[in-house]
């Protein structure tokens, strides 16, 4: 790849030439293997798989016939390490070095798909080898993720080969600022970071704001628990974000941009840094980009692990070297942002959509989606779901399709209970909401939000009070401490929830919690505090019975809250084998040999080990 550094792209014609050369070089292979190099697959040792694959191909003399592409996240993280073999479009998952050697021999040489290494549908009890038949893939529409999993993340040539920097070329040489902003506005693209503000309108405000110095910032401080949409894009297609930032900078009149990435994403930072160097090396960043006279450069800023820095004004403070605390809005960043200058902040996924909008037009983009929610949305599927991973769906499909078709339903055939949408700021929806259309307005009407795109599916074994407690613990830990409602309010809400899960709360505490939650939401300074009570408010709204069970009956219906659990031994069933007593970590079980045993509730820590080891089903959880 280093050869490209000697090459300079000085004009649109250079760009086209490079693309054509790349396409010429990459056609004519018998197979192309897209092997996932996302962080999820890497953590399940995909590197060993890649080495084994390379070796097997080389040993069999196939190097000239098979093209291997190390890509970003393919999406089906639950099946990692995974790869797709083209032109057949076969998905192989849960790979090991042994399996890939077999695939090389049987599929690449023998021409037969190795069905038993493909996706196994547990409900239908059958293998589904082809991505075109897999609901996980065929229900998705990839716009923001168009290149993720399909190109070599480390190659600017591969990106250019997939129409990379063509949008920039179009904007700089043909469209100009006004038409570009208009096209983005017409597309209906809205911010994918959570607030859903129309991107074109934001850019227009940045453009119209007077000022010699302006900035554009990419917010890559993705911090919601279980969310990794932005990480996948940065790891799999960093140039799409860089290109969009150059376009955005050009449109608003900024010559300088920042990408604010959280420090917990070392791989994304590494790949982004490499991509920046490539872009700078070929002249797509720096002075006189594509001969247009426009200068622009980007810098990465690494966050120090505070969730609140994803809030745009706190992010600005952090870039300025100040404590990551939000500022009061108004003034909004487009009026007075980084170092007091007009600043536009866009989320990674929003930016990843930009070039597609420009290349294919607003009309094409807005043909996806419903109502005021145009295009697609990337979600991170997590929780008790079969196909956890990264998906991109056209807005307007139902939650049911996401969970049951794409997500493959709940694990172990358990019953669906709730889905938490939008991270800690989002809400928990119920089975009754499964047919709600997934778009900004419908989810908000149901009490949740699209948010940045975290979706956590929960099965019947989930306690909703405990779930609310979990999110509140996260938020109160991440509160910056600036304003009273968030600093003290979230702590007091957490304490109330802890009292509930510990069986120490009174019935009126539900109302107290609700009142407090509403006040925190109404008075907190920034979006973190204002949305922090959402999981609490929605769980009280939709699962009030569970709250009442905790406070009135001191019971946890899902048997999750340890303090409310009680283990007893049914003397009828107990054979006195002593297995449970030997396994008990706190010696809470006593009894004579061959006689029924008993658990001392004062000593028991409710770990459940007795129930797990009992062969006679004598341990009862109540």
């Amino acid at each position, binding site marked *: 790849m280093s050869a490209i550094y000697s090459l300079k792209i000085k004009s649109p014609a250079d760009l086209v030439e490079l693309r054509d050369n790349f396409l010429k070089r990459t056609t004519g292979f018998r197979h192309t293997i897209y092997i996932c190099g996302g962080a999820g697959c890497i953590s399940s040792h995909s590197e060993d798989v890649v080495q084994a694959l390379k070796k097997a191909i080389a040993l069999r003399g196939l190097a000239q016939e098979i093209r291997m592409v190390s890509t970003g996240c393919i999406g089906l993280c639950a099946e990692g390490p995974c790869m797709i073999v083209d032109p057949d479009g076969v998905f192989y998952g849960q790979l090991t070095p042994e399996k890939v050697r077999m695939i090389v021999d049987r599929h690449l040489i023998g021409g037969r798909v190795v069905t038993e290494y493909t996706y196994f549908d547990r409900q239908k009890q059958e293998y589904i080898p082809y991505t075109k038949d897999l609901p996980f893939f065929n229900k998705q529409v990839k716009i923001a993720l168009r290149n993720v999993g399909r190109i070599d993340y480390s190659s600017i040539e591969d990106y250019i080969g997939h129409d990379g920097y063509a949008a920039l070329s179009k904007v700089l040489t043909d469209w100009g600022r006004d038409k570009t902003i208009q096209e983005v506005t017409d597309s209906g693209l809205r911010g994918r970071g959570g607030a859903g503000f129309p991107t074109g309108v934001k850019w227009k405000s940045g453009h119209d704001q007077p000022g010699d110095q302006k900035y554009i910032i990419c917010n890559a401080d993705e911090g919601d628990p279980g969310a990794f949409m932005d990480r996948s894009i940065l790891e799999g297609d960093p140039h799409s974000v860089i290109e969009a930032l150059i376009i955005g900078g050009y449109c608003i009149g900024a010559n300088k941009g920042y990408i604010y990435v959280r420090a917990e994403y070392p791989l994304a930072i590494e790949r982004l840094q490499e991509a920046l160097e490539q872009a700078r090396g070929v002249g797509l960043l720096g002075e006189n980009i594509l001969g247009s006279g426009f200068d622009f450069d980007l810098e990465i800023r690494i966050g120090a692990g505070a969730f609140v820095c994803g809030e745009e004004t706190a992010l600005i403070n952090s870039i300025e070297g100040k404590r990551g605390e939000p500022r009061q809005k*108004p003034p909004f960043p487009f009026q007075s942002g980084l170092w007091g200058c007009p600043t536009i902040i866009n989320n990674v996924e929003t930016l990843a959509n930009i070039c597609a909008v420009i290349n294919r037009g607003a009309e094409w983009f807005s043909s996806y989606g419903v109502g005021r929610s145009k295009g697609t949305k990337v979600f991170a599927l997590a929780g008790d779901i079969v196909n956890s991973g990264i998906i991109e769906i056209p807005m307007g499909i139902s939650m049911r399709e996401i969970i049951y078709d794409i997500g493959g339903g709940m694990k172990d055939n358990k019953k669906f209970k709730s889905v938490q949408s939008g991270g800690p700021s989002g809400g928990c929806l119920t089975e009754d909401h499964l047919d709600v259309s997934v778009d900004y307005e419908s989810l908000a009407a149901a009490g949740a939000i699209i948010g940045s795109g975290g979706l956590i599916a929960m099965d019947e074994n989930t306690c909703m009070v405990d779930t609310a407690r979990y999110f509140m613990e996260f938020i109160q830990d991440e509160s910056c401490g600036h304003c009273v*409602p968030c600093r003290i309010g979230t702590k007091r809400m957490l304490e109330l929830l802890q009292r509930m899960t510990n069986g120490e709360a009174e019935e009126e505490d539900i109302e*107290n919690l609700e009142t407090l939650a509403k*006040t925190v939401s109404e008075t907190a300074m920034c979006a973190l505090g204002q949305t922090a009570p959402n999981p609490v408010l929605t769980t009280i709204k939709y699962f009030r019975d569970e709250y009442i069970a905790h406070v009135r009956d001191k019971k946890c219906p899902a048997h999750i809250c340890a303090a409310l659990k009680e283990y007893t031994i049914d003397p009828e069933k107990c054979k006195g084998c002593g297995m449970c007593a030997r396994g008990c970590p706190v010696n809470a079980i006593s009894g004579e040999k061959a006689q029924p045993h008993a658990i001392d509730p004062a000593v028991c820590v409710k770990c459940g080990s007795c129930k797990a080891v009992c062969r006679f089903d004598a341990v009862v959880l109540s």
Partner: protein
Amino acid sequence: MINLTINGKQVSAPEGSTIMEAAKLAGIDIPHLCHCPGIHTNGSCRVCVVEIEGMKKLMASCIVKAQEGMVVHTSTERVRLARKIIYDLLISNHPKDCMACSRNQSCELQAMGGTLGILETHIHGEPSPRRVDISPSITRDTRKCILCRRCVTACHEVQGVGAIFAQNRGFNTVIAPALGKPLNTVDCAMCGQCTVVCPTGALTETDGMEKVWAALTDPNKRVIVQVAPAVRAALGEEFGLPAGETCTGKMATALHDLGFDDVFDTNFGADLTILEEGTELLQRLTAALTGGEAVLPMITSCSPGWIKHCEHAFPTELDHLSTCKSPHTMLGAVIKSFYADRLGIDPKDMFVVSVMPCTAKKYEIQRPVMQNDGNFNVDAVLTTRELARMIRTMGIDFVNLEDGTFDAPLGFSTGAADIFGVTGGVMEAALRTVYELVTGREMPGSNLHLEPIMGLEKIKEASILFKDVKPEYSFLEGVEARIAVTSGLKNADVLLEQIRDGKSPYHFIEVMACPGGCINGGGQPRIRNNVPNYKELRIEALYNEDEGKPLRKSHENPDLLELYKVFLGEPGSHLSHELLHTTYTARGHFNEWLDPEFIAKREKEMSEAV
């Protein structure tokens, strides 16, 4: 002007006004806690939230700007409930021991409960992890802190020191020096501006009263008090007298009533300072203009907060500081030598108390160099606020007291001493004497004032031309002495950076640590919220004191001249140097200059560079 509707009233407010300011114009006082007019607005407490039509959330009125056509409601049911819950949250994390707090009845958090009509609390929970840190000047009790951040603004934005700031996050947030270190171990100047703005008892002066009460009840102690000039211009405020009303006479009576054996005036020490410092300036000028070595500009040294800041921030520039002690330590040294001799008692049996507008002086008297013959020059410092508390404790009806006087022989002063409490005052007092010494004529200027250096401007400059000088000062003939005056440490940094970079055009600089001078010291009454122009009023009061005196030049103080005649000799004499002058300690921002290893390394680097 911006037109908006607040509670149904049409209001016109100047462009850029906040909703709170606009409401004030309509006669509506929106309750607020963290907001400190003129200094600090950051919207952290949310007590001032209001409803704005068209906005979903309640907005902090202290920070959101009024906009044309806005419709605001400041006390709907929704707003009142929100405020009550916010207040409830605040005090759920506050030790409710108001009765045993120095801010009892002057606490803004306590008062807010009354304003909001709080009759019961509903929210309870664990307190955040916090602690008490007692430094010589300032006591931080972070359990009482409501994290309004006024102190952070005072320390960073006003003073430019930056010794304390928010640490940790969320519920564990605490305002503290870096790494949670004790205040006494960091580069805090001890100026106490944080204690003036603190709405609660989280930041207060470290108690000096206990020691003083003990001394007053000790039959074997001769307890002597002295009072700084700025105290008389503000003490009355503590008793409801209007700002700017001096109460020198009542104060002298109250001090006698408290049982002090002698009531002296730090003003006498101020006159003494002028003779010593004026002489030092002339010596430095003489040396500089006659081919000798002299460090110029010379900088005043009356303000111990400034001294400590300079030791931390400019450890290489300490030679610029005048070697004079501050007026009250000078007077303490005289009391424990000259006056002890005259009374025929052992200075060890004396207890000298200084009533000061200052918190830094509590730290200053503990400096090892502030002693002679093994006796500290001053034994205790009380702030203006603490003196008021003692007066109340004694049941003295301050407002109705008869005027008394200071005691001889260390109680008489000239007008020059009074203006020591005002920015520009030390400089003006010094020049009144120096000019007359050099030329034999009164300093030019209207009514003995040097107008360019009066007032609250951040950095003030002037020059004074020496013409037709006395023969012994012929080297000064035609010399234009350039002077600068500043107050507030952030502003002092500007002048000191010039010096450090070798670009200072001045001969003599006056620095006071607190913005506006001692009248706005860290130990003064807290009335900022109620009387916005309190600084101007206090300044005027001290200029009035000056102008009302028959003698207005330090070198005319007859008792002072007598002191030189019978005891000290002449200004700058050997005995003067022993008693009235001092040395400084290079510290550095991290106290690194106190570390021998650092010094050795630095010296090595310097010699290598040469």
